[in-house]
């Protein structure tokens, strides 16, 4: 795989060297200096206050599901509440879009809807003498886009979950939908709030809900460890966000978007006073993104999050939580400009974003190649895709990044939901070595075809929505005047090839070949529902006699199939903005992005750009298609045409000392977990042990025991006075009174008390 790309990479090196000699010095300074920034002042319109129902509907569902969970009422009502409230939220989002779309495409003003007071501290009238953060909505292009796809996908996923979680109706059904409702409510607060503190509220809300949902199967130690890990990893990012909000307030005196963007737009790039406080903001925001969107050093929580029920994986990894980081980057894009923090720091910040995204995309893809758990492959592919999005924002195309968020949300939801359908039917079997030929199994055909579509999109098949959006990122990177950014582009191209390989590796192994169905560990409920499938599957068992004799896989039911079909259609239609671009004269998603705070620079790349000396568009198409074809072909040879060859290759790799690390490293995620455990984990363990010993010796041993012995010591001195004789005590008392009397009389007689 990598060998095939070597020539292109070498060419890239030559190309980069050329550019460095002629254009680097001239362009590098302008990379973050994006010229005049203009953000329209928000248009305050309280007439849109009906939008609050978008938040209140899921919250009402939270209350109802919570009541059901607390009162231990069994039944399917929680799913009805959840799906119903999501449908309402989605309908309102669409309604807003329809009402607003004429102005969305003509004016650039965001919509601000005040809903109520929240934090209102004033200790003066000047700047930096107030902290105001109300309950209010700030809706511009990216908010609108997020509102649309979050609510629509959440509705579909909740509908899917209502069937998927059927076997839990007697257990955690209400608890599950409680968390899902709260999750979506938090996500909507995150994207719709008009200030950073509201965003932080939603940010923490989705973190909490992911914790609850990943650990849904709380009786399994693995699930508990996974949710703890996700929570702790996210806390590191949350710390970055909190510090960024503090610094934003100390530097700009407000946390409301409108005021912030106006302040940045008003400042002059030439005279801006860069300070460490301002320069730290974009890096702290990036740390927050790393936590929430599973980037860079903090990505290891996401694969473990697979412990949650599969609809949760789809909800967390496709539509909502992980895209919150991308949203934050897009929303806070003005902070990555020369106006905000000075040209040099802004460039460093942007390049850091780009490199983190690029490296994460590459590392995620290489790990995905070595996984045998198909759900984990999709988890690592999510990390990789998120890396692409972050890279898109880093290389300067917010449009590409956001467009890929949009297309990815659909096909990744599709992949997770098909994976869930397979898991659901195969009693929780997640190892694709124990499954095979599912395309031939009746009832699973639709699922496997949907998965094929998802894999093709993940592999960025030419002309697919995914390819159209991803190519914008690659185009921007490869035609950039900055050499480093072009390197990111080449690495991104290599990643695309690897992605094509691992996506089809999963699908070929699962769908083709002889039928193999070893059931997984949980046999739950396959007797309850699925009788209709028994007759169809009998022959499969008889003819193969595999280990799971007597196991009846049950095919997905109506709701799961319906949702799969709808999301599959949605995945294809997600490419419409590009397909219709020629006809409409504009790209639908680009309109959203260009009417938002993410739009900090002019459109994608210079005119008449060249890649490797050819026209950039044509060259990129050939290159991108080339790596995808190579990747898919390699997967076909090793996993479909001749799976034995693939297995032999792996065995030989494991046997060859020089290559063993490649296979095992990929399988174990490059030992990142182990490295963390060995460094940070070990260091904290040592500190903990030191503190434990200190506590035992100094605190317990010296301080507490010493103080505790003082009363006992004093008591031993005076103890002999306690004879046990009442008369003795009485005599002491009477004697004492006598002495006091004598003293008083003596003072009296000597005239002291006159």
């Amino acid at each position, binding site marked *: 795989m990598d060998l095939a790309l070597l020539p292109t990479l070498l060419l890239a090196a030559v190309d980069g060297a050329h550019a460095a000699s002629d254009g680097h010095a001239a362009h590098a300074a302008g990379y973050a200096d994006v010229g005049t920034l203009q953000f329209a002042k928000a248009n305050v319109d309280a007439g849109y206050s009906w939008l609050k129902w978008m938040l209140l509907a899921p919250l009402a569902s939270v209350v109802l599901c919570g009541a059901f969970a607390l009162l231990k009422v069994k039944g399917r009502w929680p799913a009805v509440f959840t799906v119903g409230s999501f449908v309402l939220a989605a309908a309102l989002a669409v309604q807003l879009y329809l009402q607003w779309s004429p102005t969305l495409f003509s004016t650039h003003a965001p919509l601000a809807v005040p809903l109520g007071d929240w934090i209102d501290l004033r200790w003066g009238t000047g700047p930096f003498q107030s902290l105001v953060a109300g309950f209010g909505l700030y809706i511009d292009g990216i908010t609108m886009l997020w509102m649309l796809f979050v609510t629509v996908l959440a509705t579909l996923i909740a509908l899917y979950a209502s069937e998927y979680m059927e076997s839990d109706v007697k257990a955690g059904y209400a608890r599950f939908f409680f968390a899902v409702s709260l999750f979506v409510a938090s996500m909507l607060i995150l994207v719709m709030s008009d200030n950073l503190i509201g965003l932080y509220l939603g940010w923490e809300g989705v973190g909490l809900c992911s914790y609850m949902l990943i650990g849904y199967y709380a009786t399994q130690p693995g699930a508990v460890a996974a949710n703890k890990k996700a929570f702790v990893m996210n806390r590191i990012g949350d710390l970055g966000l909190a510090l960024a909000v503090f610094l934003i307030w100390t530097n700009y005196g407000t946390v409301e978007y409108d005021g912030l963007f106006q302040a940045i737009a008003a400042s002059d790039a030439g005279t801006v006073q860069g300070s460490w406080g301002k320069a730290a903001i974009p890096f702290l925001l990036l740390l927050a993104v790393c936590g929430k969107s599973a980037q860079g050093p903090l990505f290891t929580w996401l694969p473990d999050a697979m412990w949650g029920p599969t609809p949760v994986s789809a909800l967390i990894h496709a539509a909502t939580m992980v895209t919150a980081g991308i949203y934050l980057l897009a929303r806070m894009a003005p902070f990555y400009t020369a106006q905000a923090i000075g040209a040099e720091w802004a460039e460093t910040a942007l390049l850091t974003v780009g490199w983190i995204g690029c490296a994460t995309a590459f590392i995620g893809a290489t790990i995905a190649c070595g996984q045998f758990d198909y759900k984990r492959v999709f988890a690592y592919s999510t990390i990789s895709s998120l890396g692409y999005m972050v890279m898109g924002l880093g290389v300067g195309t917010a449009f590409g990044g956001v467009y890929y968020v949009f297309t990815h949300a659909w096909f990744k939801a599709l992949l997770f939901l098909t994976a869930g359908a397979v898991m659901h039917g195969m009693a929780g079997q997640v190892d694709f070595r124990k499954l095979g030929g599912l395309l031939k199994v009746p009832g699973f055909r639709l699922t496997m075809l949907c998965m094929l579509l998802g894999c093709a999109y993940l592999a960025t098949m030419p002309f697919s929505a995914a390819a159209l959006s991803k190519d914008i990122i690659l185009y921007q990177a490869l035609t950039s005047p900055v050499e480093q950014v072009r390197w990111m582009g080449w690495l991104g191209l290599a990643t695309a090839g690897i992605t094509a390989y691992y996506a089809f590796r999963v699908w070929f192994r699962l769908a083709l070949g002889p039928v193999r169905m070893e059931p997984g560990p949980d046999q739950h409920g396959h007797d309850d529902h699925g009788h209709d499938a028994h007759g169809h599957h009998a022959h499969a068992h008889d003819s193969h006699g595999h280990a799971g004799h007597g196991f009846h896989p049950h095919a997905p039911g109506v709701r799961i199939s319906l949702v799969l079909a709808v999301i599959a259609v949605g995945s294809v239609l997600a490419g419409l903005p590009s397909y219709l671009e020629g006809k409409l004269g504009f790209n639908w998603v680009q309109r959203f992005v260009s009417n938002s705070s993410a739009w900090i620079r002019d459109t994608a790349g210079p005119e008449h750009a060249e890649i490797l000396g050819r026209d950039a568009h044509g060259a990129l198409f050939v290159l991108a298609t080339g790596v995808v074809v190579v990747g898919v072909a390699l997967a076909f040879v090793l996993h479909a045409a001749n799976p034995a060859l693939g297995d032999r290759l792996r065995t030989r790799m494991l046997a060859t000392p020089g290559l063993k690390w490649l296979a095992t490293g990929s399988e174990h995620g490059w030992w990142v977990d182990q490295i963390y455990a060995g460094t940070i984990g070990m260091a904290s363990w040592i500190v903990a042990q030191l503190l434990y010993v200190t506590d035992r010796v100094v605190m317990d041993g010296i301080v507490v025991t010493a103080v505790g012995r003082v009363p006992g010591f004093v008591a031993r001195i005076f103890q002999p006075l*306690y004879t*046990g*004789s009442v*008369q003795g005590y009485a005599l002491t008392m*009477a004697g004492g009174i006598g002495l006091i009397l004598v003293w008083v009389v003596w003072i009296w007689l000597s005239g002291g008390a006159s």
Partner: protein
Amino acid sequence: MNTALALLADAPVSPAMPASIQVTLVLALLLFAIGLVGFLTRRNMILMFLCTELMFQAAALAFVAFGRMWMDLSGQLFVIFILTVAAAEAALALGLVVLLYRRKETLSNDAWAELKE
């Protein structure tokens, strides 16, 4: 001059009545001393209890005497209180003595010296 006190007094009184108050106070002192000595020398819990009552009444007598001296009803009011509380306390204390006797089959308070620890 208080009308109530005037009714109480059988003759017109003057604030200073040195002879009668001294006599009364000496009587109260004697009563108190007897009670104290009795309390310190006796080992029988009932007798000790009676001695405390004696000291009580000495104090009550002093109250009455001083009330008379200052022509103030407060002294007599206090006596009423002392009598009431003493009645309640007597019931409690005698009950305790009975319980203690049942435990040790003796009224001597030396039997309870082990409580010193």
